[in-house]
């Protein structure tokens, strides 16, 4: 294992410290715990707060999307582990501006348990919460069990839309509806080429024979729907785009936002090669790309691979994506 780290157990606290030192104008810790970050201007009175969270190792997810027009706070777990309910509760109290708090995070068992418990604790404090789960990984469950799917890179669309709605003063009910609507119109699928090495154990997150790829991989290296010989970029884009179009039921005339996301060790050049074919395929089907995002938005440390996400757009979703936003890792307008 060759990593730029100090003590493996200090890894998470130390990169959070780095973020705080680099971006004091955007984020802060409300208390002593480095595992709770909130917007520098939190709480915003009268505005809905949005708390996200999850394991570390996915930057810019989750902590990178705390800022204006995005999430208001985040609870940070160890690498690939849920934050505690207390940390989520601390984030909730720190962002509550009296209009309630939306919990918006990826659908993983440990996170769900801890966020649900934090919701109980918030209720005791008189803070109303709602929960919307990111569940965009089409390879993890069939369409009829869409709400059981894992949450992956596509959650950033929900952050963006819900964050814009909260900033313009929408009610908790409305912000939650918008987040849910975006989740339901988002689909993601990825491929894995090489695992990450977990800093605390030194073990790879999965094992893949030379020359093979895992189609439908999760952002912790979870197995996908098939394993096979590595294909060309155009073939990969073809498989992924076809699956996403089918899942969302997109037809000619549709408008989409496209996210081509690197999983940590895949260069931007390769992502643009993927985007090239994705763009051509969508165009050939008469689908308009109204927004595109290409780069690292949700990673798995230094896992090699990429995912493609599509958000089926209408005027409202597009307007929410185009609203201004600024966090340490994301800017719009």
């Amino acid at each position, binding site marked *: 294992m060759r990593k730029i780290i100090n003590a493996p157990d200090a890894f998470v606290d130390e990169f959070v410290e780095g973020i705080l030192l680099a971006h004091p104008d955007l984020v802060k810790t409300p208390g002593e715990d480095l595992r709770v970050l909130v917007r520098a201007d939190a709480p915003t009175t009268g505005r809905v707060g949005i708390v996200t969270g999850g394991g570390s190792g996915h930057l810019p997810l989750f902590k990178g999307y705390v800022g204006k027009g995005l999430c208001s706070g985040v609870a940070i777990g160890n690498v690939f582990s849920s934050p505690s309910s*207390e940390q989520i509760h601390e984030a909730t109290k720190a962002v509550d501006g009296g209009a309630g708090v939306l919990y918006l995070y990826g659908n993983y068992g440990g996170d769900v348990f801890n966020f649900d418990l934090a919701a109980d604790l918030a209720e005791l404090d008189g803070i109303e919460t709602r929960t919307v789960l990111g569940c965009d990984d089409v390879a993890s469950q069939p369409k009829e069990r869409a709400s059981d799917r894992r949450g992956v890179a596509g959650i950033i669309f929900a952050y963006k839309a819900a964050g814009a709605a909260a900033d313009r003063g929408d009610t908790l009910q409305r912000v939650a509806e918008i987040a849910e609507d975006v989740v339901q119109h988002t689909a993601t699928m990825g491929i894995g080429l090489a695992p990450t090495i977990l800093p605390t154990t030194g073990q790879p997150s999965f094992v893949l024979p030379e020359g093979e790829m895992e189609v439908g991989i999760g952002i912790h290296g979870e197995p996908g729907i098939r394993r096979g010989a590595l294909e060309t970029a155009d073939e990969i884009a073809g498989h992924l785009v076809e699956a996403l179009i089918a899942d969302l039921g997109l037809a000619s005339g549709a408008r989409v936002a496209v996210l081509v996301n690197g999983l940590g060790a895949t260069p931007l050049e390769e992502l643009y090669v993927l985007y090239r074919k994705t763009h051509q395929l969508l165009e050939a089907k008469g689908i308009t790309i109204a927004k595109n995002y290409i780069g690292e938005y949700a990673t798995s440390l230094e896992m090699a691979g990429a995912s493609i996400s599509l958000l089926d757009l209408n005027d409202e979703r597009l307007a929410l994506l185009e609203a201004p936003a600024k966090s340490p890792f994301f800017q719009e307008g």
Partner: protein
Amino acid sequence: MQGNELKERIRESLTGLIESSDELRDLDQALGDGDLGITVSAGSNAVIAAIEQLPSDATPADIARASAKAFANANPSTMAALVAGALLAGSKVWADVTEVGVENAHAFAEAAAASIAQRGKTQVGDKTILDGLAAAVDALAGQTEADEALDAAILAASNAVENTKNLQSRRGRASWLQERSIGIADPGATAFLRFLESWKSSAPVVAE
């Protein structure tokens, strides 16, 4: 039982429960990831410390809430989150209770069981803590006398734990073992039984 007596009984019974943590760790190693021992020992110690900090006029609901928070944070495992959610659900039915009787204990356990069933997406027979808890809830129904009620609950939970040996785990990591989980008692249900047994042995001795 008023707040201060409740605190003392919790302290005594959790001190006793910690002695079962090695047994629970071993059971959980056979079926799950083996962290139940630390969840129970760290959680119990955290609860003992937390209720120590409560004011003397803390209500039973306050005590349950403080216990829930402490248990959840000590070792934030899935079991810890489930138990804490169950304690918070129980605390809600105690909102106006100042003195806990058998009926209140039954209502608390019933709310706790409903919370675990909902959050854990589980039902009786899945070989989880719910098997022990639900059996105790049924046994407490209609009881009026504290000692008899407790004995009935322990007997029912003990039978339920014994019965989990015949079952296949359907939830959590243990479910990955499929039929290999048969033959081993469920660690969560066993933990609940050990707690009830410890609660009984922590009862103050009444002078003849």
